[in-house]
Protein backbone atom coordinates (compact mmCIF):
# COMPACT_ATOMS: atom_id res chain seq x y z
CA UNK A 1 0.00 0.00 0.00
CA UNK A 2 2.72 2.37 1.02
CA UNK A 3 4.57 1.76 -2.18
CA UNK A 4 1.49 2.45 -4.29
CA UNK A 5 0.71 5.80 -2.66
CA UNK A 6 4.37 6.78 -3.08
CA UNK A 7 4.16 6.07 -6.80
CA UNK A 8 1.01 8.20 -7.04
CA UNK A 9 2.69 11.17 -5.39
CA UNK A 10 5.67 10.67 -7.70
CA UNK A 11 3.39 10.65 -10.73
CA UNK A 12 1.68 13.86 -9.68
CA UNK A 13 4.67 15.98 -10.65
CA UNK A 14 4.99 15.06 -14.32
CA UNK A 15 1.20 14.99 -14.74
CA UNK A 16 0.86 18.46 -13.24
CA UNK A 17 3.64 19.75 -15.48
CA UNK A 18 1.98 18.25 -18.53
CA UNK A 19 -1.37 19.81 -17.62
CA UNK A 20 0.29 23.19 -17.11
CA UNK A 21 1.89 22.96 -20.55
CA UNK A 22 -1.43 22.02 -22.14
CA UNK A 23 -3.19 24.95 -20.46
CA UNK A 24 -0.45 27.33 -21.54
CA UNK A 25 -0.62 25.95 -25.07
CA UNK A 26 -4.42 26.25 -25.17
CA UNK A 27 -4.10 29.88 -24.01
CA UNK A 28 -1.49 30.64 -26.65
CA UNK A 29 -3.93 29.51 -29.36
CA UNK A 30 -7.02 31.00 -27.72
CA UNK A 31 -5.56 34.51 -27.43
CA UNK A 32 -3.94 34.10 -30.86
CA UNK A 33 -0.43 34.76 -29.63
CA UNK A 34 0.60 32.22 -32.23
CA UNK A 35 -1.50 32.12 -35.42
CA UNK A 36 -3.95 29.24 -35.30
CA UNK A 37 -2.97 27.72 -38.65
CA UNK A 38 0.58 27.26 -37.39
CA UNK A 39 -0.14 25.97 -33.91
CA UNK A 40 -3.53 24.32 -33.45
CA UNK A 41 -4.82 24.22 -29.89
CA UNK A 42 -4.93 20.92 -27.92
CA UNK A 43 -8.71 20.95 -28.28
CA UNK A 44 -8.43 21.19 -32.08
CA UNK A 45 -5.88 18.38 -32.06
CA UNK A 46 -8.24 16.14 -30.15
CA UNK A 47 -11.02 17.10 -32.53
CA UNK A 48 -8.88 16.23 -35.55
CA UNK A 49 -7.94 12.96 -33.91
CA UNK A 50 -11.59 12.02 -33.40
CA UNK A 51 -12.69 13.11 -36.86
CA UNK A 52 -9.92 11.24 -38.60
CA UNK A 53 -9.97 8.27 -36.26
CA UNK A 54 -10.94 5.67 -38.88
CA UNK A 55 -8.32 6.84 -41.34
CA UNK A 56 -5.66 7.05 -38.64
CA UNK A 57 -6.38 3.50 -37.56
CA UNK A 58 -6.10 2.13 -41.08
CA UNK A 59 -2.67 3.78 -41.45
CA UNK A 60 -1.70 2.71 -37.97
CA UNK A 61 -2.34 -0.92 -38.87
CA UNK A 62 0.30 -0.74 -41.59
CA UNK A 63 2.87 1.01 -39.39
CA UNK A 64 2.27 -1.40 -36.55
CA UNK A 65 2.59 -4.42 -38.81
CA UNK A 66 5.93 -3.11 -40.09
CA UNK A 67 7.08 -2.36 -36.55
CA UNK A 68 6.14 -5.75 -35.18
CA UNK A 69 7.57 -7.72 -38.12
CA UNK A 70 10.77 -5.66 -38.19
CA UNK A 71 11.26 -5.87 -34.44
CA UNK A 72 10.66 -9.62 -34.33
CA UNK A 73 13.12 -10.23 -37.14
CA UNK A 74 15.68 -7.78 -35.74
CA UNK A 75 15.46 -9.37 -32.31
CA UNK A 76 15.77 -12.87 -33.75
CA UNK A 77 18.79 -11.95 -35.87
CA UNK A 78 20.38 -9.98 -33.02
CA UNK A 79 19.90 -12.81 -30.57
CA UNK A 80 21.25 -15.38 -33.00
CA UNK A 81 24.31 -13.20 -33.65
CA UNK A 82 24.91 -12.85 -29.90
CA UNK A 83 24.71 -16.63 -29.44
CA UNK A 84 27.11 -17.17 -32.32
CA UNK A 85 29.61 -14.61 -31.00
CA UNK A 86 29.44 -16.04 -27.51
CA UNK A 87 29.87 -19.58 -28.71
CA UNK A 88 32.59 -19.03 -31.24
CA UNK A 89 35.34 -16.58 -30.46
CA UNK A 90 36.50 -15.90 -34.05
CA UNK A 91 32.97 -14.69 -34.81
CA UNK A 92 33.18 -12.33 -31.87
CA UNK A 93 36.53 -10.97 -32.95
CA UNK A 94 35.42 -10.58 -36.54
CA UNK A 95 31.95 -9.14 -36.00
CA UNK A 96 31.95 -7.12 -32.79
CA UNK A 97 34.04 -4.14 -33.97
CA UNK A 98 32.11 -3.98 -37.21
CA UNK A 99 28.77 -4.02 -35.43
CA UNK A 100 29.85 -1.10 -33.28
CA UNK A 101 31.15 0.69 -36.35
CA UNK A 102 27.84 0.38 -38.20
CA UNK A 103 26.19 2.31 -35.40
CA UNK A 104 28.01 5.45 -36.51
CA UNK A 105 25.89 5.41 -39.65
CA UNK A 106 22.65 7.27 -38.88
CA UNK A 107 19.42 5.50 -39.78
CA UNK A 108 18.17 8.70 -41.42
CA UNK A 109 21.02 8.48 -43.89
CA UNK A 110 20.39 4.93 -45.06
CA UNK A 111 16.61 5.15 -45.17
CA UNK A 112 16.51 6.88 -48.60
CA UNK A 113 18.89 4.26 -49.99
CA UNK A 114 16.68 1.47 -48.72
CA UNK A 115 13.65 3.06 -50.38
CA UNK A 116 15.65 3.39 -53.58
CA UNK A 117 16.71 -0.27 -53.51
CA UNK A 118 13.59 -1.94 -52.19
CA UNK A 119 10.76 0.26 -53.42
CA UNK A 120 7.72 1.78 -51.80
CA UNK A 121 6.27 -1.32 -50.21
CA UNK A 122 6.90 -2.74 -46.75
CA UNK A 123 10.32 -4.19 -47.45
CA UNK A 124 12.51 -1.08 -46.92
CA UNK A 125 10.63 -0.19 -43.72
CA UNK A 126 11.11 -3.62 -42.27
CA UNK A 127 14.78 -3.67 -43.18
CA UNK A 128 15.33 -0.29 -41.54
CA UNK A 129 13.65 -1.50 -38.36
CA UNK A 130 15.75 -4.66 -38.37
CA UNK A 131 18.88 -2.51 -38.59
CA UNK A 132 17.68 -0.31 -35.73
CA UNK A 133 16.61 -3.21 -33.53
CA UNK A 134 19.61 -5.41 -34.10
CA UNK A 135 22.19 -3.32 -32.25
CA UNK A 136 20.75 -2.89 -28.75
CA UNK A 137 19.76 -6.55 -28.69
CA UNK A 138 23.04 -8.00 -29.86
CA UNK A 139 25.18 -5.83 -27.57
CA UNK A 140 22.97 -6.24 -24.51
CA UNK A 141 22.44 -9.96 -24.86
CA UNK A 142 26.08 -10.69 -25.61
CA UNK A 143 27.10 -8.72 -22.55
CA UNK A 144 24.60 -10.75 -20.51
CA UNK A 145 26.06 -14.03 -21.80
CA UNK A 146 29.61 -12.95 -21.06
CA UNK A 147 28.95 -11.63 -17.58
CA UNK A 148 27.49 -14.91 -16.33
CA UNK A 149 29.02 -15.99 -13.03
CA UNK A 150 32.17 -18.01 -13.72
CA UNK A 151 31.73 -20.00 -10.51
CA UNK A 152 28.19 -20.95 -11.46
CA UNK A 153 29.46 -22.13 -14.83
CA UNK A 154 32.23 -24.12 -13.14
CA UNK A 155 29.70 -25.70 -10.83
CA UNK A 156 27.60 -26.70 -13.83
CA UNK A 157 30.68 -28.14 -15.47
CA UNK A 158 31.52 -30.14 -12.37
CA UNK A 159 28.02 -31.61 -12.67
CA UNK A 160 28.91 -32.66 -16.18
CA UNK A 161 26.69 -30.10 -17.93
CA UNK A 162 27.02 -29.70 -21.69
CA UNK A 163 27.55 -26.29 -23.28
CA UNK A 164 23.91 -26.24 -24.28
CA UNK A 165 22.85 -26.94 -20.68
CA UNK A 166 25.13 -24.20 -19.39
CA UNK A 167 23.55 -21.87 -21.91
CA UNK A 168 20.02 -22.91 -21.02
CA UNK A 169 20.35 -22.78 -17.26
CA UNK A 170 22.85 -19.97 -16.74
CA UNK A 171 23.61 -17.75 -19.69
CA UNK A 172 20.09 -17.45 -21.03
CA UNK A 173 18.76 -16.21 -17.70
CA UNK A 174 21.73 -13.99 -17.08
CA UNK A 175 21.03 -12.18 -20.37
CA UNK A 176 17.28 -11.78 -19.79
CA UNK A 177 17.42 -8.38 -18.02
CA UNK A 178 19.71 -7.04 -20.76
CA UNK A 179 17.44 -8.49 -23.40
CA UNK A 180 14.42 -6.70 -22.02
CA UNK A 181 16.13 -3.36 -21.52
CA UNK A 182 17.37 -3.64 -25.10
CA UNK A 183 13.90 -4.49 -26.30
CA UNK A 184 12.37 -1.55 -24.44
CA UNK A 185 14.66 0.93 -26.17
CA UNK A 186 14.21 -0.80 -29.45
CA UNK A 187 10.41 -0.81 -29.73
CA UNK A 188 10.23 2.97 -29.36
CA UNK A 189 12.95 3.42 -31.99
CA UNK A 190 11.24 0.92 -34.24
CA UNK A 191 8.01 2.95 -34.48
CA UNK A 192 9.98 6.08 -35.28
CA UNK A 193 12.02 4.11 -37.82
CA UNK A 194 8.87 2.90 -39.54
CA UNK A 195 7.43 6.42 -39.74
CA UNK A 196 10.74 7.77 -41.02
CA UNK A 197 10.88 5.22 -43.80
CA UNK A 198 7.26 5.92 -44.70
CA UNK A 199 7.99 9.63 -45.09
CA UNK A 200 10.38 8.80 -47.87
CA UNK A 201 7.83 6.94 -49.87
CA UNK A 202 5.05 4.47 -49.45
CA UNK A 203 1.39 3.77 -50.03
CA UNK A 204 0.11 3.57 -46.47
CA UNK A 205 1.24 4.10 -42.90
CA UNK A 206 1.33 6.92 -40.39
CA UNK A 207 4.40 8.44 -42.08
CA UNK A 208 2.56 8.56 -45.39
CA UNK A 209 -0.45 10.11 -43.69
CA UNK A 210 1.86 12.67 -42.11
CA UNK A 211 3.36 13.77 -45.40
CA UNK A 212 -0.13 14.08 -46.91
CA UNK A 213 -1.56 16.23 -44.12
CA UNK A 214 1.61 18.32 -44.13
CA UNK A 215 1.17 19.06 -47.81
CA UNK A 216 -2.42 20.15 -47.18
CA UNK A 217 -1.29 22.34 -44.27
CA UNK A 218 -3.62 20.48 -41.89
CA UNK A 219 -1.48 21.09 -38.84
CA UNK A 220 -4.18 19.94 -36.44
CA UNK A 221 -4.01 16.52 -38.11
CA UNK A 222 -0.23 16.66 -37.94
CA UNK A 223 -0.43 17.06 -34.20
CA UNK A 224 -3.03 14.32 -33.96
CA UNK A 225 -0.70 11.85 -35.67
CA UNK A 226 2.29 12.92 -33.56
CA UNK A 227 0.14 12.31 -30.51
CA UNK A 228 -0.86 8.90 -31.83
CA UNK A 229 2.75 7.88 -32.52
CA UNK A 230 3.87 8.74 -29.02
CA UNK A 231 0.88 6.90 -27.51
CA UNK A 232 1.75 3.82 -29.58
CA UNK A 233 5.38 3.97 -28.47
CA UNK A 234 4.29 4.22 -24.85
CA UNK A 235 1.95 1.27 -25.22
CA UNK A 236 4.69 -0.83 -26.81
CA UNK A 237 7.15 0.06 -24.04
CA UNK A 238 4.49 -0.81 -21.49
CA UNK A 239 3.84 -4.14 -23.23
CA UNK A 240 7.53 -4.98 -23.01
CA UNK A 241 7.46 -4.21 -19.28
CA UNK A 242 4.46 -6.47 -18.82
CA UNK A 243 6.17 -9.21 -20.77
CA UNK A 244 9.31 -8.77 -18.69
CA UNK A 245 7.36 -9.10 -15.46
CA UNK A 246 5.70 -12.24 -16.80
CA UNK A 247 9.00 -13.76 -17.87
CA UNK A 248 10.95 -12.85 -14.74
CA UNK A 249 8.68 -13.67 -11.79
CA UNK A 250 11.64 -13.97 -9.40
CA UNK A 251 12.22 -10.23 -9.69
CA UNK A 252 9.00 -9.57 -7.85
CA UNK A 253 9.59 -12.04 -5.00
CA UNK A 254 10.09 -10.20 -1.74
CA UNK A 255 13.46 -10.22 -0.07
CA UNK A 256 13.85 -12.30 3.06
CA UNK A 257 12.23 -10.43 5.93
CA UNK A 258 14.32 -9.41 8.94
CA UNK A 259 12.26 -11.54 11.25
CA UNK A 260 12.91 -14.63 9.19
CA UNK A 261 16.60 -13.86 9.00
CA UNK A 262 16.90 -13.71 12.76
CA UNK A 263 14.73 -16.79 13.23
CA UNK A 264 16.89 -19.01 11.03
Amino acid at each position, binding site marked *: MKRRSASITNNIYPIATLLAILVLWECLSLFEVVPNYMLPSPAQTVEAFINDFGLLMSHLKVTLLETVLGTLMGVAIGYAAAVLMDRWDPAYKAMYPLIVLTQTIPAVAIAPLLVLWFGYKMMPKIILIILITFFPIVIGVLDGFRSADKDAI*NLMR*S*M*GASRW*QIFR*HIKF*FNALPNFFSGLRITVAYAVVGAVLAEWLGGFAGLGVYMTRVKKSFAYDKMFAVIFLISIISLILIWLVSVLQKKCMPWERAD*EVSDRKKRG*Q
Partner: protein
Amino acid sequence: MHKLETQNITMSFGNETIIRDISISVDQGELVCLLGVSGSGKTTLFNCISGIYTPDSGRVLLDGEDITGTTGRISYMLQKDLLLPYKTIEDNVALPLIIRGASRDEARARASEYFEEFGLEGTQTMYPKQLSGGMRQRAALLRTYLFSDNVALLDEPFSALDTITKGRIHRWYLDVMEKINLTTVFITHDINEAILLSDRIYIMTGRPGEIKSEVRIKTPRSDRHGYDLTDEFMDYKRQIMGILGEEKRETE
Protein backbone atom coordinates in the same frame (compact mmCIF):
# COMPACT_ATOMS: atom_id res chain seq x y z
CA MET B 1 39.62 -50.14 -1.13
CA HIS B 2 39.06 -46.48 -0.39
CA LYS B 3 35.95 -44.71 -1.57
CA LEU B 4 38.00 -41.86 -3.00
CA GLU B 5 41.70 -41.65 -3.41
CA THR B 6 44.12 -39.23 -5.00
CA GLN B 7 47.52 -40.54 -5.95
CA ASN B 8 50.44 -38.12 -6.15
CA ILE B 9 48.55 -35.25 -7.74
CA THR B 10 50.66 -32.40 -9.01
CA MET B 11 49.23 -29.38 -10.78
CA SER B 12 50.85 -26.22 -12.06
CA PHE B 13 49.73 -23.12 -13.90
CA GLY B 14 52.46 -21.81 -16.15
CA ASN B 15 55.70 -22.06 -14.23
CA GLU B 16 54.11 -22.06 -10.82
CA THR B 17 53.41 -25.38 -9.15
CA ILE B 18 50.27 -24.96 -7.06
CA ILE B 19 50.04 -28.39 -5.44
CA ARG B 20 52.68 -31.10 -5.31
CA ASP B 21 52.39 -34.80 -4.80
CA ILE B 22 49.08 -34.84 -2.98
CA SER B 23 47.85 -38.26 -1.88
CA ILE B 24 44.77 -38.42 0.27
CA SER B 25 42.13 -41.04 0.79
CA VAL B 26 38.59 -41.08 2.08
CA ASP B 27 36.61 -44.12 3.17
CA GLN B 28 32.90 -44.73 2.74
CA GLY B 29 30.88 -42.50 5.08
CA GLU B 30 33.90 -40.61 6.33
CA LEU B 31 34.08 -36.85 6.85
CA VAL B 32 37.55 -35.69 6.00
CA CYS B 33 38.76 -32.15 6.23
CA LEU B 34 41.47 -30.31 4.34
CA LEU B 35 42.77 -27.61 6.64
CA GLY B 36 45.19 -24.98 5.52
CA VAL B 37 45.84 -21.29 5.09
CA SER B 38 44.58 -19.46 2.01
CA GLY B 39 46.73 -20.02 -1.03
CA SER B 40 47.86 -23.52 -0.14
CA GLY B 41 46.08 -24.92 -3.19
CA LYS B 42 43.10 -26.56 -1.53
CA THR B 43 40.64 -25.35 -4.14
CA THR B 44 42.97 -26.38 -6.95
CA LEU B 45 43.02 -29.88 -5.50
CA PHE B 46 39.22 -29.89 -5.45
CA ASN B 47 39.08 -28.75 -9.04
CA CYS B 48 41.36 -31.67 -9.92
CA ILE B 49 39.25 -34.18 -8.00
CA SER B 50 35.99 -32.92 -9.49
CA GLY B 51 37.45 -33.15 -12.98
CA ILE B 52 37.29 -29.46 -13.86
CA TYR B 53 41.09 -29.55 -14.15
CA THR B 54 43.18 -32.45 -15.31
CA PRO B 55 46.27 -32.64 -13.11
CA ASP B 56 49.76 -32.62 -14.64
CA SER B 57 50.46 -35.93 -12.99
CA GLY B 58 48.74 -38.24 -10.57
CA ARG B 59 45.39 -39.99 -10.57
CA VAL B 60 41.98 -39.68 -8.98
CA LEU B 61 40.31 -42.97 -8.07
CA LEU B 62 36.66 -43.38 -7.19
CA ASP B 63 35.89 -46.89 -5.91
CA GLY B 64 39.13 -47.91 -7.54
CA GLU B 65 38.11 -46.60 -10.94
CA ASP B 66 40.32 -43.97 -12.55
CA ILE B 67 38.21 -40.83 -13.02
CA THR B 68 41.01 -38.32 -13.53
CA GLY B 69 39.69 -35.37 -15.55
CA THR B 70 36.11 -36.65 -15.65
CA THR B 71 33.36 -34.32 -14.51
CA GLY B 72 29.94 -35.34 -13.32
CA ARG B 73 31.02 -38.07 -10.90
CA ILE B 74 31.77 -36.21 -7.69
CA SER B 75 29.59 -33.44 -6.33
CA TYR B 76 31.07 -30.11 -5.54
CA MET B 77 29.80 -27.27 -3.40
CA LEU B 78 31.45 -23.90 -3.30
CA GLN B 79 31.72 -21.27 -0.62
CA LYS B 80 29.12 -19.14 -2.37
CA ASP B 81 25.84 -21.02 -2.36
CA LEU B 82 25.52 -20.35 -6.10
CA LEU B 83 21.80 -20.93 -6.05
CA LEU B 84 20.49 -19.51 -9.29
CA PRO B 85 18.39 -16.45 -8.40
CA TYR B 86 15.90 -17.06 -11.19
CA LYS B 87 14.98 -20.60 -10.22
CA THR B 88 12.84 -21.65 -7.29
CA ILE B 89 14.50 -23.64 -4.50
CA GLU B 90 13.06 -26.92 -5.79
CA ASP B 91 14.33 -26.24 -9.30
CA ASN B 92 17.72 -25.18 -7.99
CA VAL B 93 18.05 -28.30 -5.92
CA ALA B 94 16.81 -30.53 -8.73
CA LEU B 95 19.21 -29.02 -11.27
CA PRO B 96 21.84 -31.79 -11.11
CA LEU B 97 19.14 -34.36 -11.83
CA ILE B 98 17.92 -32.37 -14.81
CA ILE B 99 21.46 -32.08 -16.10
CA ARG B 100 21.74 -35.82 -15.88
CA GLY B 101 18.69 -36.10 -18.11
CA ALA B 102 15.74 -36.42 -15.73
CA SER B 103 12.53 -34.67 -16.72
CA ARG B 104 11.51 -31.66 -14.67
CA ASP B 105 8.70 -33.50 -12.90
CA GLU B 106 10.87 -36.51 -12.08
CA ALA B 107 13.62 -34.28 -10.76
CA ARG B 108 11.25 -32.25 -8.62
CA ALA B 109 9.63 -35.37 -7.21
CA ARG B 110 12.97 -36.88 -6.25
CA ALA B 111 14.21 -33.64 -4.74
CA SER B 112 11.06 -33.12 -2.69
CA GLU B 113 11.72 -36.34 -0.77
CA TYR B 114 14.64 -34.68 0.98
CA PHE B 115 13.24 -31.28 1.83
CA GLU B 116 12.14 -32.31 5.28
CA GLU B 117 15.35 -34.09 6.14
CA PHE B 118 17.32 -30.99 5.22
CA GLY B 119 15.03 -28.69 7.15
CA LEU B 120 13.80 -26.99 4.01
CA GLU B 121 10.12 -27.85 4.06
CA GLY B 122 7.91 -25.05 2.78
CA THR B 123 10.66 -23.42 0.72
CA GLN B 124 10.03 -25.35 -2.51
CA THR B 125 8.46 -22.53 -4.47
CA MET B 126 10.48 -19.72 -2.92
CA TYR B 127 13.34 -17.97 -4.65
CA PRO B 128 16.84 -17.98 -3.12
CA LYS B 129 16.69 -14.33 -2.15
CA GLN B 130 13.73 -15.09 0.08
CA LEU B 131 15.85 -17.42 2.22
CA SER B 132 18.36 -16.59 4.92
CA GLY B 133 22.05 -17.39 4.45
CA GLY B 134 21.88 -20.54 6.57
CA MET B 135 18.87 -21.87 4.70
CA ARG B 136 20.55 -21.17 1.39
CA GLN B 137 23.58 -23.22 2.43
CA ARG B 138 21.24 -26.07 3.35
CA ALA B 139 19.64 -25.89 -0.07
CA ALA B 140 23.07 -25.81 -1.69
CA LEU B 141 24.07 -28.87 0.33
CA LEU B 142 20.94 -30.71 -0.74
CA ARG B 143 21.70 -29.88 -4.35
CA THR B 144 25.21 -31.24 -3.80
CA TYR B 145 23.78 -34.41 -2.32
CA LEU B 146 21.31 -34.92 -5.16
CA PHE B 147 24.10 -34.47 -7.63
CA SER B 148 25.88 -37.51 -6.30
CA ASP B 149 25.51 -39.53 -3.14
CA ASN B 150 29.00 -40.88 -3.77
CA VAL B 151 31.36 -38.26 -2.53
CA ALA B 152 30.83 -34.56 -1.90
CA LEU B 153 33.52 -31.91 -1.99
CA LEU B 154 32.63 -28.86 0.07
CA ASP B 155 34.80 -25.80 -0.42
CA GLU B 156 34.54 -23.66 2.71
CA PRO B 157 30.81 -24.30 2.87
CA PHE B 158 30.09 -22.29 5.98
CA SER B 159 32.73 -19.58 5.92
CA ALA B 160 30.38 -16.87 4.66
CA LEU B 161 28.00 -17.27 7.60
CA ASP B 162 28.08 -15.31 10.85
CA THR B 163 29.32 -17.07 14.00
CA ILE B 164 25.93 -17.80 15.52
CA THR B 165 24.41 -19.14 12.32
CA LYS B 166 27.58 -21.13 11.83
CA GLY B 167 27.29 -22.80 15.25
CA ARG B 168 23.74 -23.79 14.44
CA ILE B 169 24.51 -25.07 11.01
CA HIS B 170 27.44 -27.14 12.35
CA ARG B 171 25.08 -29.01 14.67
CA TRP B 172 22.58 -29.43 11.89
CA TYR B 173 25.30 -30.59 9.53
CA LEU B 174 26.50 -33.33 11.91
CA ASP B 175 22.89 -34.50 12.31
CA VAL B 176 22.13 -34.61 8.62
CA MET B 177 25.42 -36.32 7.80
CA GLU B 178 24.53 -38.99 10.35
CA LYS B 179 21.27 -39.59 8.50
CA ILE B 180 22.40 -39.53 4.89
CA ASN B 181 25.83 -41.05 5.47
CA LEU B 182 27.50 -39.02 2.75
CA THR B 183 31.22 -39.37 2.18
CA THR B 184 32.61 -35.87 2.36
CA VAL B 185 35.81 -33.94 1.93
CA PHE B 186 35.59 -30.35 3.01
CA ILE B 187 37.93 -27.42 2.94
CA THR B 188 38.22 -24.97 5.78
CA HIS B 189 40.70 -22.56 7.26
CA ASP B 190 38.86 -22.63 10.60
CA ILE B 191 40.62 -25.00 13.02
CA ASN B 192 37.59 -25.27 15.31
CA GLU B 193 35.33 -26.23 12.44
CA ALA B 194 37.82 -28.82 11.26
CA ILE B 195 38.03 -30.55 14.65
CA LEU B 196 34.33 -30.32 15.31
CA LEU B 197 33.08 -31.72 12.02
CA SER B 198 35.56 -34.28 10.77
CA ASP B 199 36.82 -37.78 11.37
CA ARG B 200 40.23 -36.98 9.97
CA ILE B 201 42.05 -33.78 9.15
CA TYR B 202 44.68 -33.34 6.46
CA ILE B 203 46.78 -30.29 7.10
CA MET B 204 47.93 -28.62 3.93
CA THR B 205 50.72 -26.08 3.95
CA GLY B 206 53.21 -24.30 1.82
CA ARG B 207 53.60 -23.05 -1.66
CA PRO B 208 53.33 -25.33 -3.56
CA GLY B 209 50.76 -26.94 -1.31
CA GLU B 210 51.61 -30.29 0.20
CA ILE B 211 50.02 -32.53 2.82
CA LYS B 212 51.99 -31.75 5.92
CA SER B 213 50.30 -33.97 8.43
CA GLU B 214 47.22 -36.00 9.22
CA VAL B 215 45.23 -35.89 12.46
CA ARG B 216 42.53 -38.39 13.41
CA ILE B 217 39.85 -37.23 15.84
CA LYS B 218 39.10 -40.04 18.30
CA THR B 219 35.70 -38.99 19.60
CA PRO B 220 33.01 -40.24 17.20
CA ARG B 221 30.98 -37.61 15.41
CA SER B 222 27.80 -38.63 17.21
CA ASP B 223 29.33 -37.50 20.54
CA ARG B 224 30.37 -34.07 19.41
CA HIS B 225 27.74 -32.09 21.28
CA GLY B 226 29.57 -29.43 23.22
CA TYR B 227 32.82 -30.99 22.06
CA ASP B 228 34.44 -27.64 21.39
CA LEU B 229 34.55 -26.95 25.13
CA THR B 230 36.38 -30.13 26.14
CA ASP B 231 40.07 -30.53 26.98
CA GLU B 232 40.47 -33.11 24.26
CA PHE B 233 39.30 -30.54 21.71
CA MET B 234 41.83 -28.05 23.04
CA ASP B 235 44.60 -30.66 22.83
CA TYR B 236 43.80 -31.25 19.17
CA LYS B 237 43.71 -27.54 18.59
CA ARG B 238 47.12 -27.08 20.23
CA GLN B 239 48.53 -29.94 18.20
CA ILE B 240 47.24 -28.50 14.91
CA MET B 241 48.36 -24.99 15.74
CA GLY B 242 51.75 -26.46 16.52
CA ILE B 243 51.93 -28.07 13.09
CA LEU B 244 50.83 -24.88 11.34
CA GLY B 245 53.21 -22.82 13.50
CA GLU B 246 56.17 -25.05 12.66
CA GLU B 247 55.50 -24.40 9.03
CA LYS B 248 55.42 -20.68 9.67
CA ARG B 249 58.84 -20.75 11.33
CA GLU B 250 60.28 -22.77 8.48
CA THR B 251 59.21 -20.24 5.86
CA GLU B 252 60.38 -17.27 7.89
